[in-house]
């Protein structure tokens, strides 16, 4: 009987790309390999008895090769979709991407139109989902000004999107020092004037520090004044408000904090 070879990798774009490289070049055949990224969400209690687990060490070179061939042999658009899926919180996204690439390398740039194919359809759905969350956070993200003029933001997105948010804010606020902190993942995007932004792990982030620093900003009150007075009281519609701005975003938004 055929045992599945399961390539286990880090839950990151580079990790997944490396695993794809390894699985592809392993020679076991597409049907006999699987990719599994390691993250809290995946439940490993159902490890398959008759599978062989192979640990993949992230290798930038191999990851780069994969991204290059996606761009060249499929398209830039497909590459962007793959990136967004790789940053999503979808379980088994690694394997989904693998299946997508099998089809993609066969059909080329046209693959994104094969909507009735389940794999493609699933990819596009997740892509849209991540894209929507990014778009929401472009608006819902709030900075507070710290004493030293640093703009600081805490968010708790579902997907791992700070690397998708940072370019927008770096373009918008080129003269500012800012930090976007993903409170659920303990990573942050940092920007300093005149330099490219970077992503950095904060393994021992101290949330107290974050919240203590917040109290110095006078403009918070002005913003709340505006927010409260701009609503038309004859049209109060909290359901519509909740539909447009789900509660899960609010705890990090200035105007909803007391």
């Amino acid at each position, binding site marked *: 009987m055929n045992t599945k070879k399961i390539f286990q990798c880090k839950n990151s774009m580079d990790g997944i790309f490396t695993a794809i490289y390894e699985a592809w070049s392993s020679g076991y055949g597409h049907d006999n390999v699987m990719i599994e990224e390691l993250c809290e969400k995946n439940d490993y209690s159902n490890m398959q008895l008759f599978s062989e687990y192979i640990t993949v060490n992230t290798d930038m070179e191999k990851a780069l090769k994969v991204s290059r061939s996606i761009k060249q042999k499929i398209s830039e658009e497909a590459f962007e979709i793959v990136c967004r899926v790789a940053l999503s919180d979808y379980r088994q996204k690694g394997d989904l991407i693998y299946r997508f690439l099998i089809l993609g390398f066969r059909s080329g740039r046209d693959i994104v139109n094969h909507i009735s194919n389940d794999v493609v359809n699933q990819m596009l759905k997740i892509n849209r989902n991540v894209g929507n969350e990014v778009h929401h956070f472009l608006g*819902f993200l709030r900075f507070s000004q710290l004493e030293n003029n640093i703009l600081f933001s805490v968010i708790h997105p579902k997907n791992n999107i700070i690397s998708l948010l940072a370019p927008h804010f770096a373009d918008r606020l080129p003269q500012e020092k800012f930090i976007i902190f993903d409170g659920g993942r303990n990573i942050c995007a940092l920007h300093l004037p005149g330099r490219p932004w970077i992503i950095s792990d904060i393994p021992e982030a101290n949330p107290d520090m974050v919240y203590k620093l917040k109290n110095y900003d006078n403009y918070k009150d*002005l913003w709340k004044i505006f927010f409260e007075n701009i609503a038309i009281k004859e049209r109060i519609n909290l359901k519509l*408000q909740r539909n447009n701005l789900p509660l899960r975003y609010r705890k990090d938004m200035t105007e909803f904090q007391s």
Partner: protein
Amino acid sequence: MVIQEGMSIQRKLEILSMAARYDVACTSSGVDRKGNNTGIGNSLACGICHTFSADGRCISLLKILFTNECIFDCKYCINRSSNDIVRASFTPREVCELTMEFYRRNYIEGLFLSSGIKISPNHTMEQIYETLRMLRDEYNFNGYIHCKIIPGTDPVLVEAIGWYADRLSCNLELPTAESLKKLAPHKNRKNILKPMRQIQLRRDRHNEYLGIDDAARNRLLTDSRINIDETDGPVAANIIVPFGRTLPAKKRFAPAGQSTQLIIGATEESDYQIMTVSEALYKNFGLKRVFYSAFVNVNQDESLPSTLDGPPLLREHRLYQADWLLRFYGFKTDELLDNNKPNFNLLLDPKCDWALRHLELFPVEVNKADYQTLLRVPGIGVNSARRIIAARKHAVLDFNDLKKMGIVLKRAIYFITCNGRMMYPIKIDEDFITRQLLASNERMPFGIDKDITYRQLSLFDDVNFQPDMHDQIKILSQA
């Protein structure tokens, strides 16, 4: 009039945001502009909502009045000169600081500056011009600016402001010149259309000069019969555009175009009249958006309809739906309404309503119908139609595929076939389908539910409502 000296910025903001809230336009869309590395700000054509206020509306811009002092006395307006309310004015610097600091914290996409009329239109607009100039030139603000043009403003000022703003708006306020005269005695239609025309010509001319084909100009709108000019006497086509100077190549005049606002339900005009005006504004004045604002009788003015039961939100919603049909779906006003049927059906959205009156055109075959035809199917929107066209190149689509693609079939199933077959054997029968559609609970903005529907029905009794409405309610309650 109460004018307080030395008012705090908090108090001013309170007064001048409250006074601005009835202007419904708050989008930051229509212009793509990268950051410029030295200043602050960029802009995305799709627009960004930053938060939603308690009325459920998107907040994208710092929407404030420069001043709520006003020499005019428009009946519908909270700031009218005859009201005894606290008045306040910002200084240009205060507006700049608020905008910059709000923007840095990502509260907003930019500024929407409107104003009451202090001393004179020109006096007020000069202050506004100074604010915009400072924001752009001193503060290096590169974000979005929407600026209101007060009727009667000198064309030279309009011209000067247009180079600093992304979007300009002159509010038409009411659909007919007569209503305007009645409710806003100091305004006249011509003074509103004049700057509109000036902005349009300036934009066209400059875009031509830059070789920009303004794609957002609505091509779908062709030959509407009524020329809005003719109802108000001609507006000169060749207004002298001041400042013949050459401009920095990248600068554009009001790149996000212009919009306007109509108050709905303060006067007796029918939906047909309103939509005819909108169509003319899109077609003849190149407007980007017409906004509809359900009338709220803020002054409890007895000569105007009472809105104690709530503003006509459902009607406003129908007008927005119809407006979309005009701008993106290739519909013409005359297809949706006419003199015998001057108002929208409150129980069905305008597209369903249209389709029910044109059952002879249905069902359409999903695998063959062209884009325009697909767009006319109830339940199929612009995105769905595009997805269908893309997907069917690679496979013959069946209902399952449509579902997988996220297309909502609830309403569409009565109007489409896949491979010549309908999803269920359905009789193409108006009564039957109407009943099904009414029962299928159209997704409404929350808060506009059936309760309000009934209340609003009575509100519209005087607006020549469809005679068959009561039948439809019967159908609805049976379903």
